[in-house]
């Protein structure tokens, strides 16, 4: 990526600092609705940035990323049934299961490219969706109520919106830091190089496949973290959380914010969740208006919401 100039990165840092400050203050206001909104934004921010690793940095447009989100949701719902509530167990297990499914499905889907890759990732997500739907004792299509929330060390419960909001904000900040670091590493450079010109990379002695597979596994595991948060937010686990519509919403957030920037898709998630709340209160055709907004973004903003903040936005 083109390095940002000093001025642009200072503008960005100020804007992000301001946003984070607002997010940190809102839960103190004692308004559960807004506190939960902050938690929701942070949760989808993590999901969107994990997808950005694939879409933005690797050029892999996955249309099945919600499967890993859903795996996180189900892990957070199922483990309490076995008497496990500790976040230190639930999150690693969720990430492990999602990472494993990512690695296995990636082994196959990453053999394909372009449109075929989109379809195969969609197919692998549908498999998980139908498995979840077929689990009769877990409510099948309807899903089930979380038997108990996830607990932090010390006993604080993620059922408490304030605890959930701060936990997910912390997780988001960590995820942003981790993803940026990863994208700037030797590994990240190879991933971007494979996106830019795979033929050149191969002619230099590197095959893109193992790098993509590792990235796909990491992105899958990261998305499950968001899923654990989501299960605690809605206190519910259902197949709807892993439907292709959710995958589409993740893609929407990435594109709205600008791919391959990490921060952009987080902003995309914030705006998407905000608009969803505002528009769905005003009209039942809110999806239509969201569509219009996405079209406007593509037509008017070269670098999405990210470009608006760095001041390199206009076409």
């Amino acid at each position: 990526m083109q390095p940002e100039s000093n001025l642009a990165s200072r503008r960005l840092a100020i804007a992000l600092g301001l946003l984070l400050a607002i997010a940190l203050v809102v839960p103190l206001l004692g308004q559960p609705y807004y506190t939960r909104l902050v938690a929701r934004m942070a949760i989808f921010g993590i999901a969107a940035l994990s997808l950005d690793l694939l879409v933005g940095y690797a050029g892999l447009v996955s249309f099945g990323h919600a499967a890993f989100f859903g795996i996180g949701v189900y892990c957070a719902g199922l483990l309490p049934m076995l008497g496990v509530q500790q976040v230190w167990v639930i999150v690693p297990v969720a990430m492990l299961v999602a990472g494993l499914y990512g690695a296995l499905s990636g082994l196959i889907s990453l053999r394909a490219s372009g449109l075929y890759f989109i379809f195969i990732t969609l197919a692998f997500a549908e498999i998980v969706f139908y498995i979840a739907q077929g689990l009769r004792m877990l409510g099948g299509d309807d899903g089930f109520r979380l038997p108990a929330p996830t607990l932090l060390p010390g006993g604080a419960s993620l059922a408490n919106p304030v605890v959930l909001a701060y936990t997910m904000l912390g997780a988001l900040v960590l995820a942003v830091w981790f993803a940026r670091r990863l994208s700037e590493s030797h590994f990240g450079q190879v991933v971007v190089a494979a996106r830019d010109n795979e033929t050149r990379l191969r002619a230099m002695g590197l095959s893109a496949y193992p790098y993509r597979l590792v990235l796909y596994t990491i992105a899958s595991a990261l998305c499950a973290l968001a899923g654990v948060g989501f299960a605690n937010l809605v206190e519910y686990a259902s197949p709807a959380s892993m439907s292709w519509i959710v995958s589409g919403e993740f893609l929407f957030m990435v594109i709205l914010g600008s791919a391959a920037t990490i921060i952009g898709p987080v902003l995309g998630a914030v705006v998407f969740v905000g608009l969803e709340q505002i528009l769905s209160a005003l009209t039942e055709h809110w999806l239509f208006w969201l569509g219009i907004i996405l079209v406007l973004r593509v037509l008017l903003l070269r670098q999405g919401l990210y470009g608006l903040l760095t001041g390199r936005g206009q076409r």
Partner: protein
Amino acid sequence: MSSSCKPDGAEADQMRLECEAPLLEVRGLVKRFGALVVTDQVSLSVRPGELHALIGPNGAGKSCLIGQISGELRPDEGEVHFRGQRVDDLAVPERARRGLARAYQVPRLFGSLTPAANAAVAEISRVRSGFRFWRRAATDPALAAAARIALDRVGLGRALAPDPADTGAVRPASLLAHGDKRLLELAMGFASDPALLLLDEPLAGLGPADSAAMVALLRSLKGRYGILLVEHDVEAVFALADRISVLVGGRVIASGPAAQIRTDPRVRAAYLGESE
């Protein structure tokens, strides 16, 4: 080449070249696309340090031949030997790691990365540090040093400098001038310590100044690397090549030292006459 190995007289260098085991040897290569035979029983070799030029009219099958040597195209028949080993069954990356470097007819670069980062990826490939997840590439002194050496070698050090018009950022490779793209691609080729360079029309699309610079660069590489050079610029080829093979309709119709090829009547009829 069946000459005896007595390095005496004025042709000592030529003799020495002929006596060494070939770096690259292609035997009886055939490639068909349906009914079209694009490579027809081609055999040729490149010795260590030799510059072997491949000329021929458009559509003669030069790029397809290079592709079969680098591994991008699978031949239907024949063998490719590199450094004494058969490499037919090896994929492109594996052949590259054994010392084959390729530049394409249309330069292929990592467009969004800066020239230095392009060269850095070549270094990452060479030292196999692609699975380092935490070390930042942009601030890694080892990568920066390797990139600088690679770019300096082709005279592209200036591409490291920030572009003042663009708020102090270094331009990504996709915005380089055409000649600089070609140079950058070559720089990335060297970074992997190759033994053989496969160069597909490195002069194509270059203006006179860039062209002269590229010829000078190729001359400086001669002797250090084996080079298989595909080129339409006949003047440059005669000035640079140790040996020339002429490909027409997928067949090698003539092969030998430059002086011999220049006067070969079949070559004049089939190719040189045509292009003049």
